Structures are given as structure tokens and as C-alpha cells.
């Protein structure tokens, strides 16, 4: 699937703008604050219906405007599609595929997969386990769209069990329904653990290889460590049963896949605690490219990669390898303040971005 064009209106610093993407690499260059990252965000917004930068969607609205809109046009195996996402404060989000309104974009086959690198996404490597879990679960959903619902259901069952624990603790409910919620949580939880394990097994070999390719010397590993030792739903259910006493004291569920950790390590040491900024950056890129490879192998679809200011802290040799990797498969959009800093982009589509204006330089052939 190819993303052909982005059209936006009243989005961040843009009143209206258009960007035509290349089949391989598209390079956005311009000074700081011109609005390069805003274009990446608009692409992400058009493909997912969410922002990759903020949970406060009002920020995406151009100052003084009533509604922001992002439209992406894609070319899939089944023909052309037009995906439109609109945001107006106080109104339900407007999402349309080929003119027909949809509830959500996840699961829609017409939408492109996207993978995003923003400098503040290093949080994924160095932050708390929750962000890595959420990222892994999003990858599971991209790999097996029909399983996305399972993660949502697990979250619902967990919230219900936690609410019941708190009520029992406060003496407002009896404990009789806890068995039923343990059972339900275990049924959904074991599937979640299996899906994550399967995904990490697929990601581990390319992650190690790509980390080395990007210039992280020594062995880089990816490990999913479930807290639970259970092999099936019945096993997880009995573990939940055992944890009940302490859960009741705390008032929430302390055991289960919602507490699991995905460990990115280098030379056997977790990058979260011991990695340098540069190592964390390379590891995150290796993870994103490993995901691209797995999606391509398993689903025949590479995500559109949105890479913000990705080369700035890399030395010349690593820059070159990164650009080679980007250009080896699929579509990518990268931003930079200095077009000269990106080696070997003669055949890329480039656009100059200045203060809310996009000037296309090389139209795609």
C-alpha cells in the first residue's frame, strides 16, 4: 500500500497545505519551527485518527480555526482510497473512508500502517514498562488485527476486577463474584500473553541483526518476561486466585500480563537503566525497523515510517546505514533541518517547509 498524498486544513501552523509523497523516501527539510513535524503528525492523524504527539487534541487545531482536517489518499491492492479525519472541539471525531463515515480506523483494511519515531519517543526505551507494553500491544494489533479486540477486552475485565476488589475492600460488595472475574481475566490474559510472546519471538532475530547493522556494537536483545508461569487459562486463573488475598489488601490486581515487562537489552544489561542516549536511540530505531520487517514478512505490508529528526545525533557512517535501511523497503518520510545531512537521497521526493508552507521540489516520477 502506498500513501500518495496528504492534504490538510487548519492543522497546527498550516492554514492549508498539500504534500505528495514519493514511493520510497520523502524528505522534508526546513528551519526549526517551520512545521515539518506537524506534517508527520498530520499523516499519523489521517492514518490512525489519533495524534502521535499529544493527548490534548485541541493542540492540533490552528489558532483561531473552528476545525482541523487531515486527508490522506492511498493506493492499495484493491484500488485507491481516501481517508479523512476531522477534529472539531466538542464534537465527535469525524472519520471517513471513501466518503462513508466510520466509528474508528483501527481494523479498516483501507488504512495504511504507520510507525513513528519522534525524539521524545525515547521514553519508550528509557521510560516505565507501561509504554513498552502499550507499544508491543499496538504491534500485536498491527500484526493480527482481529486480536486487537482481545487487548481491549482484557482492559475492561481488569477494570471490572479492580473495581470489585476495591468494593470488597471497602465492604460495599461481597467477594462471591470474584471467581467469575478471575476466570474471565485469565481467559483473556492468556491470549494476550501468547500474542505478545509470539510477536517478540518474531521480532527478536531482526532486532538483533538491525541493531548491529545500525552500529550498536555487541549483542542487542529483546525479551518479553511474563510474570505468570501459567501455560493455560486454568493456570493463570489459579495464580489470580492465589494473589487474591494481597490484591484485596491493595484494592487492585497486582498479578497478570498488565504488569509484564518488555526488556530491551544491550550486552545483557537493560538499556532502560544502562543505555546511553545514543544507544537508546539506535535500539528504538532497530525495534521500529524490526517491526517493519516482521509486518512485511507476515502480512506483506510495510508501515509508512515517519521519522522525525532521526539523523541529528548520528555520526556520518551510521547516518549512511540508516538511510540505506530506510530506502531498502517501503515508504518513509523523514524531517531534517539540513538536507545536506542526509546522504544518498538523489532519488527521493523532497519538499521545503517554511512557516506553514510546503513547497514541493521534486515531484515523484
Amino acid at each position, binding site marked *: 500500500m502506498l500513501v500518495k498524498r496528504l492534504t490538510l486544513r487548519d492543522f497546527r501552523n498550516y492554514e492549508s497545505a498539500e504534500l505528495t509523497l514519493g514511493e520510497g523516501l520523502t524528505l522534508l527539510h526546513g528551519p526549526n519551527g517551520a512545521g515539518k513535524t506537524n506534517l508527520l503528525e498530520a499523516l499519523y492523524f489521517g492514518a490512525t485518527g489519533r495524534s502521535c504527539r499529544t493527548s490534548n487534541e485541541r493542540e492540533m487545531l490552528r489558532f483561531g480555526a473552528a476545525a482541523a482536517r487531515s486527508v490522506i489518499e492511498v493506493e492499495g491492492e484493491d484500488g485507491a482510497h481516501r481517508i479523512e479525519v476531522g477534529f472539531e472541539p466538542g464534537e465527535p471525531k469525524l472519520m471517513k473512508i471513501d466518503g462513508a463515515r466510520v466509528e474508528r480506523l483501527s481494523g479498516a483494511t483501507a488504512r495504511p500502517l504507520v510507525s513513528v519515531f519522534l525524539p521524545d519517543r525515547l521514553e519508550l526505551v528509557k521510560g516505565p514498562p507501561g509504554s513498552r507494553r502499550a507499544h508491543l500491544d499496538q504491534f500485536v494489533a498491527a500484526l493480527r488485527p482481529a*486480536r486487537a479486540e482481545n487487548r481491549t477486552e482484557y482492559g475492561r*475485565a481488569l477494570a471490572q476486577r479492580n473495581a*470489585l476488589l476495591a468494593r470488597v475492600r471497602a465492604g460495599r460488595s461481597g467477594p462471591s463474584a470474584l471467581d*467469575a472475574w478471575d476466570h*474471565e481475566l485469565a481467559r483473556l490474559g492468556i491470549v494476550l500473553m501468547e500474542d505478545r510472546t509470539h510477536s517478540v519471538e518474531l521480532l527478536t532475530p531482526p532486532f538483533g541483526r538491525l541493531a548491529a547493522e545500525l552500529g550498536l556494537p555487541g549483542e542487542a536483545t529483546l525479551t518479553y518476561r511474563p510474570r505468570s508461569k501459567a501455560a493455560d487459562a486454568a493456570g493463570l486463573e489459579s495464580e489470580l486466585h492465589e494473589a487474591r488475598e494481597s490484591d484485596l489488601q491493595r484494592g487492585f490486581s497486582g498479578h497478570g500480563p498488565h504488569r509484564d515487562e518488555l526488556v530491551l537489552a544491550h550486552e545483557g544489561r537493560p538499556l532502560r537503566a544502562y543505555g546511553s542516549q545514543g544507544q537508546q536511540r539506535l535500539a528504538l530505531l532497530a525495534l521500529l525497523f524490526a517491526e517493519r520487517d516482521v509486518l512485511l514478512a507476515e502480512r506483506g505490508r510495510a508501515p509508512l515510517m515517519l521519522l522525525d529528526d532521526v539523523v541529528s545525533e548520528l555520526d556520518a557512517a551510521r547516518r549512511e546505514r540508516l538511510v540505506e535501511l530506510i530506502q531498502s523497503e517501503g515508504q518513509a518520510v523523514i524531517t531534517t533541518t539540513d538536507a545536506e545531512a542526509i546522504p544518498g537521497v538523489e532519488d527521493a521526493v523532497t519538499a521545503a517547509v517554511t512557516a506553514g508552507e510546503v513547497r514541493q521540489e521534486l515531484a515523484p516520477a
Partner: protein
Amino acid sequence: MFAPPVNRLITELARLPGIGQRTAQRLAFHILRLPPEEALPLAEAIKEVKETVRQCEVCFNLAVEPTCRVCQDERRDAALICVVEEPSDIIPIERTNEFSGRYHVLGGALSPIDGVDPEDLHIEELAKRVEAGGITEVVVATNATTTGEATALYIADLMRERAPDTEVTRLASGLPVGADLEYADEITLGKALSGRRRL
């Protein structure tokens, strides 16, 4: 903005599910335009339904008399009970013409988040009904949602304890009739696989 009685009508209409402020206004002005003989039957229908319809003493379905029409029907199999969340869930089951037993309406599903405990549903009444004897099978037809599943599990556990001789079954979930395998989503297909039966 409008005369107080009009505002009151708009406010009442807007409290209905799925009706926003704008739709409520449109409906209110529609009602205002109607001649009295067309508008008042609605008010009377609401009044009548609230004054005459109550819950069946046996199964908590909607009833005008002390028991509902299903419970009064002697031809229906009294040994078979289908458990549903809401009275409205009975309609699609009745339409199938495949179920000849009686019903039991729970009045919702377990949901600790909303403060719904087993005691808030008609679960104890179900247990008493089954304990009284003569029931061979309880079909649990709660929704295929997290709350519906947990409710089903709770009922199954309770039945094992209180009426071990009664069989408890769950509605199968699977492929819609006439559907091609190719178009079935993974979850539906997965459930259909795990719930497969011998031919």
C-alpha cells in the same frame, strides 16, 4: 428561550437515550404542530405503560398480569429456562421459534464498575427457581461481552453448587448462517472453532 412548558418538553425528550438537545427541539416542535388527537395518544401510551406494565413474579419479564404470557403458556417446557440480561433480549430468541422453554430475566449483568453485584440482579430468584426442582437445563444467553461472560460464569458456578443435577449450557457463538469462511473475522472463527461439535 421558549415558554416554560415547551422548555419542559424539550428537557424531558432530551433525557431519552440517543436524543440530543437539537433532536429534542425538533421533536418538541413537531409535537406542538400536531392536532391534540394525534399528540395526546403518545402521552396516554406512556401513562398506560407505566401504570399497567410490571415485572412477572416468576421470571421478571414484562407483564400486565402477575405473571407474563410466556409463564402462563402451559404448552411451554417448564423444565428448560433461558437466562437473559434484559426483557428485550427475549424478542430475538422468540423470533427464532426454536426455543420452547421459559425465561429468566436478570435485569442486567455483573459490573462492579457500575456497582452491580449479584444481589442487584435476579440471580437468587433463579437459584430458588431451579432448587424448587423440575428444571433439567439452564441455557445462559447473556451477551457475549466481558460483563455478560462473567455473569454467565457466576451463574454456572452457583448452579453447580445449588443444583448440581441441572445442566447449565451457554449459547454457542460462531459463524452466521450463509457466511463464507473467507469473510469471517478471526475472533468469530476462533470461537466457532473452540465451540465446534461432533458430526
